[in-house]
């Protein structure tokens, strides 16, 4: 079993997301091996790691989109099924077809699916909430446009608006800053920080060390196993980064870190 003190002393009921021995993969080939993780509430956590390290797999397995081979994910100490309304998932934007016939407002409204249920009708108050979420990411003026005309950064902001409309307490984002222009990156990071300041919890898969150092509270280094977890300054050291990325890391990027 795990050594004493391996986890921060957090009551699981306080932790929006905690993983215990989560193992998952595709076609019998495990990608993620025994991931342990405890995310404290009101923090911004980045999950870092090289390609194929199992970052997306970790999110998908935690959300039950992929059946874990072993281990469990706890949301506020319980099963996801009881907490779904409080958890918003933002997949990679490349995972959907942006030629789909929908307006920007339609996508934001999808965040209200749980409230609407299978047969519920969209009412003005739902529309208002979707529009408020779009306003927060600066897309309200484009609400009636088809999504096919959006740039990558705008696509990502629509996805974020959909999660905001849901009014969740835990946001799980898969590469929210990938292929995004600097203006959108700024706007997305600002919204995520606001969410954190409201006491909500943000967990984002991310690849850029610089952004993590400057903008995130906590970091998780992942390369099939969790190699480090904690406050950014403690988790990101030359040694842990070397262990995660092997020789693939630019020595210059390491130079600025304490060894």
């Amino acid at each position: 079993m795990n050594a004493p003190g391996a986890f921060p002393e957090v009551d699981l009921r306080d932790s929006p997301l905690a993983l215990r021995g989560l193992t998952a993969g595709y076609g019998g080939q495990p990608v993620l091996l025994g991931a342990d993780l405890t995310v404290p509430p009101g923090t911004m956590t980045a999950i870092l790691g090289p390609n194929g390290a199992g970052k997306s797999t970790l999110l998908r397995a935690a959300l039950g989109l992929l059946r874990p081979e072993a281990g469990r994910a706890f949301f506020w100490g319980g099963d996801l099924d009881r907490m779904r309304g409080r958890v918003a998932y933002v997949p990679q934007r490349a995972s959907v077809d942006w030629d789909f016939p929908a307006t920007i407002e339609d996508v934001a409204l999808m965040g209200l699916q749980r409230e609407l249920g299978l047969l519920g009708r969209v009412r003005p108050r739902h529309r208002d909430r979707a529009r408020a979420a779009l306003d927060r990411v600066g897309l309200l003026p484009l609400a009636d446009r088809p999504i096919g005309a959006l740039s990558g950064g705008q696509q990502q902001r629509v996805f974020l608006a959909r999660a905001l409309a849901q009014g969740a307490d835990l946001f799980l984002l898969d590469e929210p800053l990938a292929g995004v222009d600097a203006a959108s990156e700024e706007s997305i990071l600002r919204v995520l920080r606001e969410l954190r300041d409201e006491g909500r919890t943000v967990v984002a898969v991310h690849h850029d060390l610089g952004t993590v150092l400057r903008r995130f509270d906590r970091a998780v280094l992942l390369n099939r196993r969790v190699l480090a977890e904690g406050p950014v300054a403690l988790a990101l050291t030359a040694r842990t980064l070397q262990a995660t990325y092997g020789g693939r890391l630019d020595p210059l990027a390491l130079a600025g870190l304490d060894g």
Partner: protein
Amino acid sequence: MTALLQAIVLQAGHNAASVVLGAALLGLAAGAAGSVMVLRRRALVSDAMAHAALPGLAAAFLLMAGLGGSGRWLPGLMAGAALTAGLALLAVEALAARTRLPADAAIATTLSVAFGLGLVLLTLIQGLRWGEPAGLEGFLVGSTAGMLRADVAAVAAVAALVLAAVALLRRPLALLAFDEGHAAASGLPVRLLDRMAMLLVLLVVIAGIRLVGVVLVVALLILPALAARAWTRRAGPMMALAAVLGGAAGWVGAALSAAAPGLPAGPLVVLCAALLAGLSLLLRGPTARRRPDRRPLIDAAEGALWTRLRLKEPRSPLLERDDGRTPLGAVLPAETLEALRQGRS
């Protein structure tokens, strides 16, 4: 021409009117169910199901004829067709999940094997001289012979059910088609919705194989959706429009066949749907046609620009038009723009 007009307004005799009504109702149902499939990118699975209806039909005929009947009792034939079509769906899913076959290859394998089995059984039936096999080959490309009022009522019931289900569930169905991961994470019953959509398609296939045939029924599922997609940019209206266009294609196609005896109704209905789709794409092309994707280029240039200028204010009227796109030509020197293009291509 008058014959066509008479057929269109259902004044070309009782039989012709039945066929026209039946085809129109079938088109309605196929347009609605088909647009769900097209959005979900499962249109080919419905083709596999349609082709796999043939061995079921033939097996049901053999069973019933072998037991001493004529073998032509329609509900029995349809039950057989539904059974093998459903089995084909399970086969596609199992092949895709359990083997290394990708989904398209799993569909192609199932479709051709099932269809081959159906053709063998049909040939066998012709040689056996059991029951009354005359007209069975009509299920291949459809036939209007002996379309009765009772058949029209059955198609009407299917159409009512399909339209009601799609209308009620259009929002969750669109959500699932757009983003399965998000749908599942928000607790939508993904499997149940997919199964239900497949069941609707199965009903349309079963209702349609008599009129249009197993080979062509998939066209009636896909073409109205394709036509509708060109006219609208939202999923709900697309489903509604696809139903209307499918109904129109069924109506006009069947009327044409009634007005020109000897021309088969099923293929004419499909050709009408194809005409609608072709016209729609021609008239409204830009909404449906994929333009070369310059978004990565624009993203990269925007990124470079923001970094260069180190702007604190993310929005500026100079840099962002009201559609959110940066007019690159306005802010980048022409040679920089050209260099970016060269570097990308």
